């Protein structure tokens, strides 16, 4: 862990209880976590473990009911209002009435940037995700993988240092997913952003992350945090090395331990 760098995300004793018709549901309980600048942190766990909820709390899309969270040294709400992060959802969520370039330009429009500034940033981010030439297309004219790349471009467009990704490649097939994983790593290496990445795929988590946060359900909590010993440069075939497999085994053990009291 890059312990000396300032914390981008710091959570302590974080808890969130949803009030539902079937009584209260503890989605997060007692989460302590510090994420430093430039880290790539994956959250992995079975469904219901609160990994998406945790990401939404960081993004101020949910309010915690106990504990504290700070993002870039501010409260989560202040950070959201300062547009401190870009968020990538499970689906591309592009607006079908806007072309790709106008979708990518959406946050820039809302921030009120000048047309020239918008055009320049749109061009730069579309280059970053290899979507040059598709500026004038509508989302429904693109494949699922390209749509998700456009949504990543949209999250990158306003240059936030923090990127929150909620199973962004979950709906894509494995070939496209491998390709996008590679591109994401390359992008991370080039931009030095901090990335929080929710996934339910062990190989994906191990391949991408500098740190893997293993979570378990009922109540949603962090059951293990695993530091990756893999180098920053990771070709796809690193996934066959013993080092990679050892980390994957540790993650699997962590997941099983979190589950052990379950029937």
């Amino acid at each position, binding site marked *: 862990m890059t312990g000396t760098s300032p914390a981008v995300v710091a959570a302590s004793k974080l808890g969130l209880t949803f009030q539902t018709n079937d009584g209260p549901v503890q989605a997060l309980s007692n989460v302590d976590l510090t994420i430093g600048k430039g880290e790539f942190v994956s959250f992995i766990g079975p469904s219901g473990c609160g990994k998406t909820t945790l990401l939404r709390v960081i*993004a*101020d*899309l949910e309010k915690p009911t106990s504990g504290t969270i700070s993002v870039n040294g501010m409260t989560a709400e202040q950070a*959201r*209002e*300062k*547009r401190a*992060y*870009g*968020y990538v*959802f*499970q*689906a591309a*969520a592009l*607006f*079908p*009435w806007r072309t790709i370039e106008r979708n990518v330009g*959406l*946050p820039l*429009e*809302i*921030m009120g940037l000048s047309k020239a500034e918008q055009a320049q940033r749109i061009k730069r981010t579309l280059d970053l995700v290899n979507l040059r030439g598709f500026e004038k297309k*509508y989302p*429904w004219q693109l494949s699922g993988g390209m749509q998700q790349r456009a949504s990543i471009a949209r999250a990158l467009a306003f240059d936030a240092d923090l990127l929150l990704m909620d199973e962004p490649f979950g709906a894509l097939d494995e070939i496209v997913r491998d390709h996008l994983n590679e591109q994401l790593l390359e992008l991370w290496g080039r931009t030095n952003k901090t990335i929080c990445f929710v996934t339910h795929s062990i190989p994906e988590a191990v391949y991408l992350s500098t740190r893997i946060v293993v979570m378990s359900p009922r109540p949603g909590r962090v059951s293990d945090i695993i530091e990756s010993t893999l180098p920053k440069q990771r070709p796809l075939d690193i996934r066959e090395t013993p080092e990679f497999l050892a980390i994957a085994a540790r993650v699997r053990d962590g997941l099983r331990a979190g589950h052990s009291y379950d029937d």
Partner: protein
Amino acid sequence: MKAPMYSWQASLAFLLVIFPIVVFVTNVGVPGLAWPYSGFSGGLAIALVTLPAWFSGRLLKLWEAALCFVCAHGAAVLLLGGIRGHEGTAGPGYYLVLASAWLLAWRCVAILSEQRPLSRLASTALRLIIPAIFGAWILIIWEAVTRGAGIPFILLPPPSAIGARIASSLPVLGADVRQTIFKAVIFGYVVGSGTGFLVAIAADRVPFLRRGLLPIGNMVSALPIIGVAPIMVMWFGFDWQSKAAVVIIMTFFPMLVNTVAGLAASGHMERDLMRTYASGYWQTLLKLRLPAAAPFIFNALKINSTLALIGAIVAEFFGTPVVGMGFRISTEVGRMNIDMVWAEIAVAALAGSVFYGVVALVERAVTFWHPSVRGG
């Protein structure tokens, strides 16, 4: 070595025409017989329907369609000419020839409907030709039956008489359209739909309006127009303003309900996305929720286009200056001028279709992105 492929329409047309052929051939030269046995035009009509019925299976599809088209319509023209001046005298031969001609036209439309044209021009032409033939035959059968059976003018005038009435009353019809559509309908439609839209946004923004106003709006939609119209005449006078008021009441609610539903139509993910951009209420409304609501709003605009016309015409039954489509219908019915009533109905139908069509075209242009428009 290909056996002819007979369609059931052509075969049935041929069977139907056997009887007229036999009667015609056995009575050549006998004076005083009713059409189609009376002379050259009847014989030609019989020959015209026999020809494609006989040949249809042996031709290329498109030639068959063309032959059916020409012969069916030729026979129809001869048939309508033959009955003129002899209304109410038609015998079985007349209806048999009519039925076979109609079957051949059916065959023609059936072939055209199967075509999958490659060029845009041809497909546009087909989209127009098929309903045109279809509509023409509704008129032909209407005309042939009313004249052939001598149906009293009061019950159902033939379309040709309605057409003649339209042609001879253009100034009156024009004045009525100006009064009813260009004043009452357009004004009421714009104001009614506009307020429905604005109130929907207000109700979305202000919770107490949503809780309090929407149920009341439900009640307004249930108001019987027949009861409201005379009250509006009391309030706003005899001229078009009272009719516009009725139209406003009728169009307000569909727009309100649809816009409220439309504003709820944008997905959670999209709204969360706008939240991550710290987008304000109005920006989210303009950039996400209104575009997502557009299909609903256009639905209301289409519903309202026909409601507005009905409302204005019915409202005119309850007092109006001596002009207007509803006024004309109510007075001409009293004077037994049924053809004028039909003329107004035809004009109202045409105006309503044009109104609806224009709204639908704008809808296609604005919601081009919606799966129902882009097709997939």
